[in-house]
C-alpha cells in the first residue's frame, strides 16, 4: 500500500518538469445529484479530454493558459465554461437533462453507448438504464440480462436457463458485479428474470473481451452493474405494477446535497394465481429482492458509500418439497481523492450465496453456501494529457460449504452427512497504463498478477497412481480411482497455490476522424468453477475452488475490430473478430453424479475449449427512431482427452460443440417515438438451435424401449426465433405534475412460436410407441405494466 503511494509520488515528481496544471472534479445530474459515469470532459480544440469514472470523477492536466472546458453527456444539455488554468483547480459541474423537443436528439440512447472511436478499449458495451427500459421483454419486466443478449456475441441457453453466455463461454465464466460485489447467480426463477431491479440500477457495462487489468477471476466477460446513489435533493418514489411482479423504490437525501439513500424492493406474486387452480394450489414459486444504497460526502475529497442486496427464490411443491436460493451482498466503499490527479477507492465487500433443498417425503434437508470477504484498493492516477495509470490490489477470502445433509426427523432414513468445507484465498495486483502515443495511436497496456491458494481445514484424499479418475479398459468407462489414504491439512495451511501473470494489451489506431481499428490481447485466469453437467444450470450446481486435483482455467483472447461513426446520421457500425482458447475447462465423465459428491475429482476430466467468431453491430443512437442490429457468426467447441486418467476421453477425445454454440445469432431491436404520448418498440431474435444429442436407435430392455446415444451434441434443436412488440403510453403529460406515470403494453413472442427448450425421447405410456416431445417454455405472453415516479 505504502509502496503504491510512493510510486505515485515518484511519477509526479518526474513529470512536474513542465508548467502544467490540473482541473478536477465531479460531474452530477442537477435534478437528483447522481454522479454521471462516462461523461466527456474536454478542452475544446485541444484533443485533451477524458471520460468520468464510475464515481463521476474527472481530472485534466494541460499547460497553463485559457481554455474552453466542455462537458457533454448524451441526453443532457452540454455545459461550457471558460477557465484559466493557472493553478490547480477543483470544479464540480451539474448537468441538466435535455427536455424533449421532438426533432432533436432525444435521451433514448446515451453518449457512452456510441462506440467510442479513440479509446483502445474494445469489446465493451455500456448500456444506460434508459435504453434498457425501452426494450420489450417478458411479462413487461425490464431486464438487464435479456437486453445484453441483444448484443452481438451474447446469448443464453434458452428460456428457462439462468445466466448468459459470452462469445461461446460458459455461464460461470462471467464476472457479475453489483456495485463491486460478486453475484453468483444472476437469475431468478431459472432465468425468467434477472436479479437486477432496473429501478435501482444506474448503468451496466459489459466487457466481452479486452478485460481491463483491474478485473480478474473469470475468463469470458465482466458485467459491471452499478446502482443509483439516490436522489440527494428531493425524495422520490418510483415503481411499477405488473401482471407478474411489482416493484417500489424510495430514494431521498440523508443530508441535503451531501448524502442520499435508495431502497428498492421487488416481488412476484404469480404463485397466488396458482391458488385458484385445484391441482396446483399447494404449490408456490416466487422471488423477491431488495436493493439498498446509502452515500455520504464527508468533505470535498472523501465520500462514503454503502450498498446492499438481498434476493431470494422460493419453490414449494405441496408440503413435500421446498427449495430456496439467493444472493446476499453488502459493501462499504470509501472514495478518497489524494490530490487533483489521484483518485482512489477502497472497498470492503461481503457476499453470500446460499441454496437450500428440503425433501419432506424422505425427511431430508440440504443447505449449501459460498461466503466471500473481499478487500479492494484501486487507484487512478491522471498523470498528464498523454498518460493515465491505474493500479491496485484485491484479496478475496472464500469459504465454501458444499452441503450439509440433515435428517429432519427421528424416523428419517437419511444419515447426517457433511461435505468437506473448502477454503481459499484469491489475490490480485495490477497496473495499467492508457497512453496516447501519437494523435492517432492510443495504447492501453497492463498486467495483472493473480494468485490463488487452496487452504486447508479439510482432508485430501490420495489416490493410487495419483489418479482420482481412471479409465477401466475392460468396461470401457471412466470410474473413480482407488483411494489409498488421506492427508489432513489444517485451517490456514496451504494445500496448493497457483500464480499467473495476465498481460492485457489493447491498441487503437484512428484511420479517419470517424473511424478506427482496434486490436487486443487478454489473458485471464479463473480459479473457481461452477460444476454443472446438465444441459442448463440448476440452482443445485456447485461452485468449486481449484486445488490439488482441479487446475485453474486459463484463457487467451485475441480480438481485432473496425469501428465507424457516421456522425451526421447518428449511426455507428462495428465489426469484431475474436479467437478465445481456454485451457483446463472441466468436463464430466458420462453419468457423473455431482450432487452431494464429496470427491468431485473422481468424476471430472481436464479438457480445453475454444471459440471464435465474427460480430457485426449497427446502432442508430439518436432521433425519433433508434435501434440496433447485431449479427454474430461463431463456433464454440470443447474436448477432453483422457489425460492422466488414460483412455480415449470424452466423446473419444474429439472436439464437440459446447451447449452454447450458436452458428448464427441475429437480433434487431428498435424504438420509435411516435408522439409525446406514444412510443413503440420491437425486438426480433433468430438463433441457430442449440446442440443436442439425439438417439440413433432403440432396443428393448426390461420391457421398455431404450434410446441409444453416441456422439455428444452432434445434432441440433430447431432454430430459436421470436418477435416481441411493446407500446408505451404516457397519459396527461403535464410537466408540472409531480406524479408521472406510463403504461407499458407488451406482447412477448407475437407469432407464438413454440421454441424448443428441449426435446425428449421416450415411449408413449399408453401405446408404447416411441415419440419425441418438445418442451417450450413460453408461447405468446401479453403483459401490462404501470410504471410511476413521484
Amino acid at each position, binding site marked *: 500500500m505504502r509502496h503504491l503511494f510512493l510510486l505515485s509520488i515518484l511519477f509526479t515528481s518526474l513529470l512536474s518538469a513542465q508548467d502544467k496544471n490540473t482541473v478536477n472534479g465531479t460531474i452530477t445530474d442537477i435534478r437528483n445529484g447522481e454522479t454521471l459515469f462516462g461523461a466527456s470532459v474536454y478542452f475544446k480544440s485541444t484533443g485533451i479530454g477524458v471520460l468520468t469514472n464510475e464515481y463521476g470523477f474527472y481530472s485534466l492536466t494541460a499547460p497553463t493558459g485559457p481554455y474552453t472546458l466542455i462537458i457533454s453527456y448524451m441526453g443532457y444539455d452540454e455545459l461550457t465554461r471558460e477557465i484559466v488554468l493557472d493553478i490547480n483547480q477543483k470544479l464540480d459541474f451539474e448537468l441538466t437533462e435535455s427536455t424533449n423537443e421532438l426533432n432533436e436528439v432525444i435521451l433514448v440512447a446515451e453518449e457512452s453507448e456510441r462506440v467510442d472511436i479513440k479509446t483502445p478499449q474494445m469489446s465493451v458495451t455500456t448500456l444506460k438504464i434508459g435504453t434498457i427500459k425501452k426494450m420489450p421483454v417478458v411479462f413487461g419486466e425490464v431486464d438487464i440480462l435479456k437486453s445484453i443478449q441483444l448484443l452481438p456475441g451474447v446469448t443464453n441457453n434458452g428460456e*428457462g436457463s439462468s445466466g448468459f453466455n459470452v462469445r461461446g463461454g460458459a455461464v460461470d465464466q462471467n464476472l457479475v458485479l453489483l456495485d463491486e460485489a460478486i453475484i453468483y447467480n444472476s437469475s431468478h*426463477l*431459472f432465468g*425468467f428474470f434477472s436479479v437486477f431491479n432496473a429501478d435501482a440500477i444506474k448503468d451496466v457495462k459489459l466487457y466481452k473481451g479486452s478485460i481491463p487489468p483491474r478485473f480478474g477471476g473469470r475468463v469470458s466477460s465482466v458485467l459491471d452493474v452499478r446502482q443509483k446513489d439516490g436522489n440527494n435533493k428531493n425524495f422520490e418514489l418510483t415503481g411499477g405494477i405488473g401482471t407478474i411482479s411489482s416493484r417500489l423504490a424510495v430514494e431521498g437525501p440523508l443530508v441535503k446535497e451531501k448524502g442520499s439513500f435508495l431502497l428498492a424492493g421487488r416481488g412476484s406474486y404469480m404463485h397466488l394465481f*396458482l391458488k385458484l387452480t385445484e391441482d396446483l394450489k399447494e404449490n408456490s*414459486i416466487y422471488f423477491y429482492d431488495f436493493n439498498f444504497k446509502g452515500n455520504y460526502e464527508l468533505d470535498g475529497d472523501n465520500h462514503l458509500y454503502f450498498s446492499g442486496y438481498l434476493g431470494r427464490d422460493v419453490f414449494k*411443491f*405441496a*408440503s*413435500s418439497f421446498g*427449495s430456496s436460493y439467493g444472493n446476499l451482498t453488502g459493501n462499504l466503499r470509501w472514495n478518497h481523492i489524494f490530490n487533483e490527479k489521484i483518485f482512489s477507492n477502497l472497498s470492503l465487500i461481503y457476499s453470500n450465496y446460499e441454496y437450500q*433443498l428440503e*425433501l419432506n*417425503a*424422505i425427511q*431430508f434437508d440440504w443447505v449449501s453456501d459460498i461466503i466471500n470477504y473481499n478487500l479492494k484498493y484501486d487507484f487512478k492516477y491522471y498523470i498528464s494529457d498523454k498518460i493515465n495509470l491505474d493500479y491496485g490490489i484485491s484479496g478475496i477470502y472464500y469459504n465454501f460449504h458444499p452441503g450439509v445433509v440433515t435428517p429432519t426427523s427421528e424416523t428419517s*432414513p437419511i*444419515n447426517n452427512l457433511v461435505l468437506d468445507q473448502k477454503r481459499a484465498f484469491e489475490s490480485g495486483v495490477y497496473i495499467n497504463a492508457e497512453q496516447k502515443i501519437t494523435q492517432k495511436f492510443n495504447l492501453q497496456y497492463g498486467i495483472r498478477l493473480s494468485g490463488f491458494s487452496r487452504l486447508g481445514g479439510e482432508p485430501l484424499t490420495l489416490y493410487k497412481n495419483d489418479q482420482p479418475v481412471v479409465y477401466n*479398459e475392460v*468396461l*470401457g468407462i471412466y*470410474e473413480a480411482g482407488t483411494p489409498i489414504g488421506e492427508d489432513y491439512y489444517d485451517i490456514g495451511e496451504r494445500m496448493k497455490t497457483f500464480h499467473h501473470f495476465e498481460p492485457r494489451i489493447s491498441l487503437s489506431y484512428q484511420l479517419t476522424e470517424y473511424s478506427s481499428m482496434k486490436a487486443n490481447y487478454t489473458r485471464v485466469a479463473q480459479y473457481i468453477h461452477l460444476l454443472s453437467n*446438465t*444441459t*442448463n444450470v*440448476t440452482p443445485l450446481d456447485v461452485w468449486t475452488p481449484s486445488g490439488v486435483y482441479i487446475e485453474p482455467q486459463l484463457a487467451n483472447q485475441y480480438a481485432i475490430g473496425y469501428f465507424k461513426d457516421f456522425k451526421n446520421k447518428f449511426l455507428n457500425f462495428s465489426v469484431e473478430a475474436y479467437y478465445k482458447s481456454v485451457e483446463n475447462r472441466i468436463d*464430466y465423465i*458420462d*453419468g457423473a*453424479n455431482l450432487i452431494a459428491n464429496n470427491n468431485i475429482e473422481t468424476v471430472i476430466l481436464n479438457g480445453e475449449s475454444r471459440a471464435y467468431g465474427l460480430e457485426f453491430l449497427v446502432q442508430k443512437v439518436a432521433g425519433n427512431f433508434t435501434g440496433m442490429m447485431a449479427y454474430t457468426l461463431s463456433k464454440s467447441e470443447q474436448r477432453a482427452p483422457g489425460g492422466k486418467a488414460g483412455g480415449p476421453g470424452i466423446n473419444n477425445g474429439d472436439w464437440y460443440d459446447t*451447449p452454447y454454440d450458436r452458428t448464427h445469432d441475429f437480433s434487431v431491436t428498435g424504438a420509435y417515438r411516435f408522439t409525446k404520448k406514444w412510443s413503440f418498440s420491437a425486438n426480433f431474435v433468430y438463433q441457430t438451435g442449440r446442440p443436442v444429442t*439425439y*438417439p*440413433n*436407435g*432403440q*432396443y428393448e*430392455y*426390461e420391457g*421398455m424401449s*431404450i*434410446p*441409444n*446415444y453416441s456422439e*455428444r*451434441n452432434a*445434432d441440433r434443436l430447431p432454430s430459436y426465433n421470436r418477435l416481441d412488440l411493446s407500446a408505451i403510453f404516457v397519459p396527461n403529460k403535464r410537466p408540472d405534475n409531480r406524479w408521472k406515470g406510463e403504461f407499458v403494453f407488451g406482447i412477448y413472442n407475437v407469432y407464438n412460436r413454440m421454441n424448443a427448450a428441449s*426435446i*425428449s*425421447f421416450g*415411449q408413449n*405410456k*399408453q401405446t408404447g*410407441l*416411441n415419440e419425441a*416431445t*418438445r*418442451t*417450450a*417454455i413460453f408461447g405468446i405472453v401479453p403483459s401490462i405494466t404501470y410504471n410511476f415516479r413521484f
Partner: protein
Amino acid sequence: MKNIVINILLVTSILLASCTDVIDIDVPYAGPKLVVEASLDWQKGTVGNTQTIKLSELQPYFDDTTPYIVTGASVKVTNDSNGRVAHFIDQDNGDYVTSEFIPVVDQSYTLEVVYNGITFAAREILTPVVTIDLVNQSMENGFDPNVIEVNIFFKDPLEEENYYLTIFQERKELLPTLLDISDEFTNGNEMRIFYEKFTNEESGEKELQPGDIVDIELYGISKTYFNYIRLLIEQNNDGGPFSTIPASLRGNCINIIDPDDYALGYFRLTEVDKRTYVVE
C-alpha cells in the same frame, strides 16, 4: 437421489407456463448392434435354475415393427469356480432358455455369446439381497399427500456398500417403473422405498386406486450394474432442460477380440425378492 431431484426440477419448470407437444423429427440410425439382455435373477425361495437370456439388435428409433430378434447365436454361462456350464437353448424367437443354471450367492460367472462368428463375453458376481420386511400403503408419506403410495421396507446391511434395483409394475400400466438406490445416505438403516403415481391427463397415467395390483421386485445388484442401470433410468426419464447430456450406455458384454466393440445391454446376476400388493 439425483432422480428425485431431476424429477422435481422438471415438475417445477413445467409449473411455469410451459407446453409440451409431440412432434415429428428426424433422427440418425447407427445400424444393427447386438443387444444382450442377460438378467439372471434368482428369486428367493425358488431353485433359480430356469433362466432366460434375450438377444436382439438395435433398430431405428421410430421403427415400431417388432424387435429385431437374433436367432442362431450360441449362449452359455459358466461358473468361474467349478467350471460348470449352463447352456441356453435357442427358442427361435430371440429368447435363449436354460434349466441348468445353479445360482450361488457371491459367485462369479462368465457369459459367452457367439453372434455372427464374434464372441462377446461378460463377467459378473451374483449379488444377494435382504428380504422385504413389510409392504404397505399410505397417503401422506409421498410427494403428494392426497395420493396413495405403496411402501416397501427392508433393512440395509451395515457392513458393506449395498446397491438395489426396485421394479414396480402396476398391472394396468404398460411400462414398469425402475428405481436405482444405493445406501450412501442410509447405510445400516431401515430403508423405505415408495411408489407413487400421479394422474396425468396427457400421458393417461392415473394415481393408484383401490383394487390396483402392483408387482414389486427388489434386486441386489453390483456396483457396476448400479452405475449402468442408474444411467439407463436417468436417460429414460429424460428430464427436459435439466437432464444430463446423454451418452451411450456401456454394458459389460465386450467383444473378446476388439474391446472397443461392445454389445448393448448387460449381464447381471442378482438375488431378488418379489411381492405382490393389492391396493386398498
